[in-house]
């Protein structure tokens, strides 16, 4: 390719990367954490939150009782959460939007007491993992910020552009760069090699993420325009399910959850159910959405798909979002979703995506470092060390503050939930408050202290914040009277956090060494103020 074209794309790569890089760091770090949302939710769930449970055989009676007093719940759906990872019993809950669709949801939990009367209690399940997923989707922009979706749509386009231009820049030297990791005197060369290798290895992952993220963020306007221009406004009717045949006479009795699951087992042997949601109760088309996954197939959602069966006889009504049973077209769409959510191939793929997500975060971090290093003014011989420009100092401090603010904020939000449980009214607001306060404080700290000093301090802080996750569990295990709790099944979360804390501590040590011994004319040096 012509060198002037390469140069143009190099400029394009630099500027799309620098504009989108920090938002992408947050999105990728939080996204990597979200891959393991199930164990993380388990880690955070207070032991008493799921009691009291319900016996499956009582379910038809309980459903009828709830539907009698809560018509909104009967229509929208009442969910039976099957016992998972050490739960003692299944439990029933639903949510309502008291003030219309956009109002915050209120969660309820119901059971039958000893006399067979329905008991309903408002509850507040931890939405920690949902919040981390939100950080992932909006790069930590505040909730209720309407332009956030458009803004992130723009970021996803910049991401795609950075990806294409990065590949074009790398093409002429692709093979030689891939096998090069020059760890020598020229540290910029080393960072560039590391950036290139991380980019090439995870290129398929990034192509998937750039395209799926663009779809997730911009599908509403695209559907809207396609409906108007191409489908004659028939889009909604293409999605509407055929109406249930009108039936006269009394409705048949509801099947018990056990009978429904047995019927499903006969029809779809590989499907592992997680929860069951009864919808449109009291109607002839009452259905049960059995949420679950089948790791032999691509699952459409992050947690799997749905088998949708009749509430009366358990036959499969719809299979369009069911792994392994969807039509070829729906299966193809499901595979796109699945490639984003890592919902195929079980934990092996999840670990792969977790590492690729962290590698993605590293890609954007190293990209910003390269921007800083490329603007470095060299010290001439026999001259005092060159002073670096204000913009490189600013960008270095911004990169350190945002990246480590995000890591520390997420870690403290996770660990803090356990300490605050039972001591505050609205724990979910605290999860948010902790993240935003820590994030902003770290970003401000980095600007105040400068990149060199704050990199050491904030890496140490992030290591301690992340270490607090396994320490909390250790304390809960050693001192059950502390009011903290420890779930053995979520030990993986503690071990992963421990490894993360160790890695951050190692980086803090390396940053301190560089600040003390590295070249004095660098923004990372502490040699001069």
């Amino acid at each position: 390719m012509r060198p002037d074209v390469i140069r143009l794309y190099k400029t394009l790569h630099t500027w799309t990367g620098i504009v989108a890089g920090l938002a992408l760091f947050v999105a990728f770090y939080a996204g990597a954490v979200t891959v393991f949302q199930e164990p993380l939710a388990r880690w955070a769930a207070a032991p008493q939150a799921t009691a009291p449970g319900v016996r499956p055989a009582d379910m038809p009676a309980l459903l009828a009782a709830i539907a009698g007093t809560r018509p909104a719940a009967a229509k929208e759906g009442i969910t039976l959460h099957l016992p998972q990872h050490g739960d003692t019993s299944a439990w029933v809950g639903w949510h309502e939007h008291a003030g219309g669709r956009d109002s915050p949801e209120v969660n309820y939990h119901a059971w039958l007491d000893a006399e067979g009367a329905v008991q309903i209690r408002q509850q507040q399940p931890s939405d920690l993992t949902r919040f981390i997923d939100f950080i992932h989707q909006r790069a930590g922009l505040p909730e209720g910020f309407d332009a956030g979706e458009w803004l992130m749509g723009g970021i996803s386009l910049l991401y795609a552009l950075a990806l294409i231009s990065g590949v074009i820049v790398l093409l002429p030297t692709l093979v030689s760069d891939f096998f090069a990791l020059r760890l020598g005197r020229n540290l910029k060369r080393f960072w560039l090699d590391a950036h290139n290798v991380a980019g090439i290895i995870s290129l398929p992952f990034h192509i998937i993420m750039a395209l799926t993220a663009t779809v997730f963020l911009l599908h509403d306007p695209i559907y809207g325009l396609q409906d108007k221009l191409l489908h004659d406004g028939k889009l909604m009717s293409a999605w509407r399910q055929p109406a249930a045949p009108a039936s006269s006479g009394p409705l048949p009795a509801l099947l018990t959850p056990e009978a429904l699951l047995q019927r499903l087992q006969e029809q779809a042997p590989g499907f592992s159910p997680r929860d069951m949601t009864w919808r449109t109760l009291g109607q002839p088309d009452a259905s049960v959405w059995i949420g679950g996954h089948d790791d032999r197939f691509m699952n459409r959602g992050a947690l799997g798909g749905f088998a949708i069966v009749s509430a009366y006889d358990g036959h499969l009504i719809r299979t369009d979002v069911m792994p392994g049973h969807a039509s070829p077209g729906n299966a193809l769409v499901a595979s796109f979703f699945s490639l984003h959510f890592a919902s195929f191939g079980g934990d092996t793929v999840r670990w792969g995506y977790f590492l690729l997500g962290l590698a993605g975060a590293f890609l954007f971090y190293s990209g910003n470092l390269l921007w800083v290093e490329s603007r470095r003014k060299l010290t001439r011989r026999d001259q005092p060390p060159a002073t670096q420009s204000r913009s490189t100092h600013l960008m270095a401090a911004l990169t350190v503050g945002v990246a480590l603010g995000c890591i520390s904020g997420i870690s403290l939000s996770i660990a803090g939930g356990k300490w605050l449980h039972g001591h505050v009214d609205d724990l979910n607001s605290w999860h948010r408050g902790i993240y935003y306060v820590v994030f902003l404080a770290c970003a401000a700290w980095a600007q105040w202290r400068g990149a060199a000093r704050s990199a050491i301090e904030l890496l140490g802080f992030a290591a301690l914040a992340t270490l607090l996750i396994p320490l909390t569990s250790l304390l809960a295990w050693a001192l059950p009277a502390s009011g903290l709790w420890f779930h053995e099944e979520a030990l993986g979360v503690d071990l992963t956090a421990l490894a993360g804390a160790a890695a951050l501590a190692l980086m803090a040590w390396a940053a301190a060494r560089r600040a003390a011994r590295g070249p004095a004319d660098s923004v990372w040096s502490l040699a001069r103020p």
Partner: protein
Amino acid sequence: MARAKHPPIKRDWLGKSLAGLLLGFTLALALSGLAGLLRPGLDGAEAQLLMWMVPPVWVAVLGGVFMFPDGWRAWAWLSLANLVAWGLLTTCLHWG
């Protein structure tokens, strides 16, 4: 030394970006419409696949638009491509 075959490429950031962003999007939309004509009727899965078609085409145009020698040529060629695609689509929709 032979004279350079091509004039040096112009950057024209604004012109090329807007051409890729706007005309790339409308072109992707038209191509998704043409793909929809391959099968009569519209079901839920097809509607989703047609939507999924748009971002890859759009992003490919947006990434490639900077290869044009200047912004005017980007606008001219992409306008022509749009004209052909939308013309074909409108023709098929009305007389197909």
